[in-house]
């Protein structure tokens, strides 16, 4: 059944989780994602699902670890300072191969930062801020509808790879309202979670299950040595890199200048691209949907015929990824926000100005 609603992005993430069959949410209040946690507090208990307001983001991520260990689909959400606290947990979830979803509604600056919109968490989300060189798939929606859809895709990918998946939202996407089609998406079948803990008598084979964030440290039948674990982990990362690159390209075929932008900023970039086309300039846009794995190959192919302009609401974090793939790369960052006030955004005409400058 398709339901059409006018909803905020933060709430759309909740409806997406519900459609994905999420059974538990753990969260701690932090702006600008409070509507999301409050949505779960309101909607989950009456449906017989678990909601716990934790004592900290450290607790949220560890509750998520416990929840994922039971095999249930579980989720948390946070914003930048809370994301910092969750890094140890993210690393442990990756080691224990526990699938779960984290929605990160990022805010500005390092430290406490600001509650203003920004894309300052690109690097910590895509590189893994905890110990040990793990990675997680990072999806970057650009609309309320995509937030809802990406949460569902994130659950599927988390289960497919037994790895945490991040949906990277921001204050604009979280707070704005757009029409939303609420519906369950089908991404295909998944293997049963016969590794989950239940109590020994509830397993068909009667064998115990042990889930540990010390794989590679404690030898196991599956991974007798550290290298066995690392090789398996490497295979997983390579499989994600090979199969989970997602992006969208607009008007790139004949483009001389290609904008690269993700999330809410990509909306401004698309508008500027269209305006530049109307002025006869051959401008295109690539919007990475998976920030990790990043669409390096797509950009590498395009760089033979075009130069690039990266537009993002930070000081240039995705810029480094585009530079790795492409030759000539220009950058327009948060310091070029349209209004000379701190609440300002990068509006399309500021992007257009930059296009005209580097075209």
């Amino acid at each position: 059944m398709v339901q059409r609603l006018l909803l905020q992005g933060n709430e759309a993430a909740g409806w997406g989780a519900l459609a994905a069959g999420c059974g538990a949410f753990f969260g701690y209040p932090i702006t600008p994602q409070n509507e999301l946690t409050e949505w779960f507090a309101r909607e989950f208990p009456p449906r017989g699902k678990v909601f716990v307001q934790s004592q900290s983001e450290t607790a949220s991520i560890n509750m998520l670890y416990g929840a994922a260990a039971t095999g249930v689909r579980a989720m948390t959400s946070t914003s930048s300072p809370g994301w910092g606290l969750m890094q140890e947990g993210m690393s442990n979830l990756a080691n224990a191969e526990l699938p779960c979803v984290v929605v990160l509604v990022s805010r500005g600056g390092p430290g406490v930062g600001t509650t203003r919109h920004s894309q300052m968490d690109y690097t910590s989300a895509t590189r893994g801020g905890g110990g040990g060189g793990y990675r997680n798939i990072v999806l970057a929606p650009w609309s309320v509808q995509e937030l809802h859809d990406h949460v569902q895709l994130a659950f599927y990918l988390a289960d497919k790879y037994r790895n945490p998946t991040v949906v990277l939202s921001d204050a604009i996407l979280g707070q704005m309202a757009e029409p939303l089609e609420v519906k369950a998406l089908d991404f295909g079948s998944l293997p049963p979670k016969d590794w989950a803990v239940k109590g020994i008598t509830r397993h068909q084979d009667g064998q115990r299950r042990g889930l540990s964030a010390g794989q590679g440290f404690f030898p196991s039948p599956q991974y007798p040595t550290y290298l066995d674990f690392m090789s398996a982990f490497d295979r997983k990362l390579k499989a994600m890199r090979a199969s989970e690159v997602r992006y969208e390209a607009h008007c790139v075929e004949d483009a001389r200048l290609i904008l690269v932008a993700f999330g809410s900023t990509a909306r401004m970039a698309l508008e500027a691209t269209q305006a530049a086309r109307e002025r006869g300039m051959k401008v295109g846009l690539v919007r990475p949907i998976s920030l990790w794995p990043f669409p390096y190959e797509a950009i590498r192919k395009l760089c033979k015929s075009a130069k690039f302009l990266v537009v993002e609401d930070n000081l240039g974090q995705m810029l480094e990824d585009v530079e790795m793939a492409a030759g000539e790369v220009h950058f327009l960052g948060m310091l070029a926000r349209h209004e000379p006030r701190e609440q300002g955004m990068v509006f399309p005409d500021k992007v257009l100005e930059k296009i005209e400058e580097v075209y």
Partner: protein
Amino acid sequence: MEKVRVTGGSPLWTRPEFATIPFCPGCQEPVASEALLQVLEETGLVGEAIAVVGIGCNSFLPFLWKMDFVMAAHGRPPDVATAVKRILKYPLVFTVQGDGDCFAIGAGSTVSAAIRGEKITIIMLNNNNYGTTGGQMSPTTLLGQKTSTTALGRGGNEEGFPAHVAETMATFKGVCYSARTAVNDPASFQRTKRCLRTAFQMQMEGLGLSFVEIIVACPPNRRLSPLETIKWIDDEVLAEFPLGEFKNVGREEMEDREPVEVKG
């Protein structure tokens, strides 16, 4: 799979699939574990038991048990156990933690689970130091006790005073049971079993959080022989940390802790 009787007793001990697991000579963590396994066997709860451990010597134990387990980050077992219990609802969920895991790095998790009155059991093995990392000071190190980070002996003004965890846990309304026991002689071993049985029973009745602190010997880090360590526990540790039940309340007293019924 071959059974290994580590301390001779419960058939719930099992050889890990991969390696031998070392405990130092005279370590009482396997003894406390034997009491735990005997209770699980006698109460028939083992089939639905899920153990949650953090980091420390005790985190090796579940690899030796015929039981489902989750190994979490240092200090986080109460958070992990909270989720496991709230989602599955039916099992016996207990944590096994050291005193550092439970009340230093994990103090926030332990106290918060107590505030929320989670229907779990926390078992804290108190060996008065950080055993795994080489005997550094922990929250329960005695005043004057020499450790590798208190070379002159713990001084209250510099390093603070020993934490009384079982007494502290008893002060939370969400806690229905709190006890401190030891395993230094056969009688205390039996008392430990009784305390664990009560704690598990109260969890299964859904009364609130139950807590059992078990004093255990860690001879190498005391630089004492196993027998000398037991004498030190008898003479000094138990003088600082008296054994006993600090809280044991019935359903009436926990009534306003009754959870909202959550459907499966």
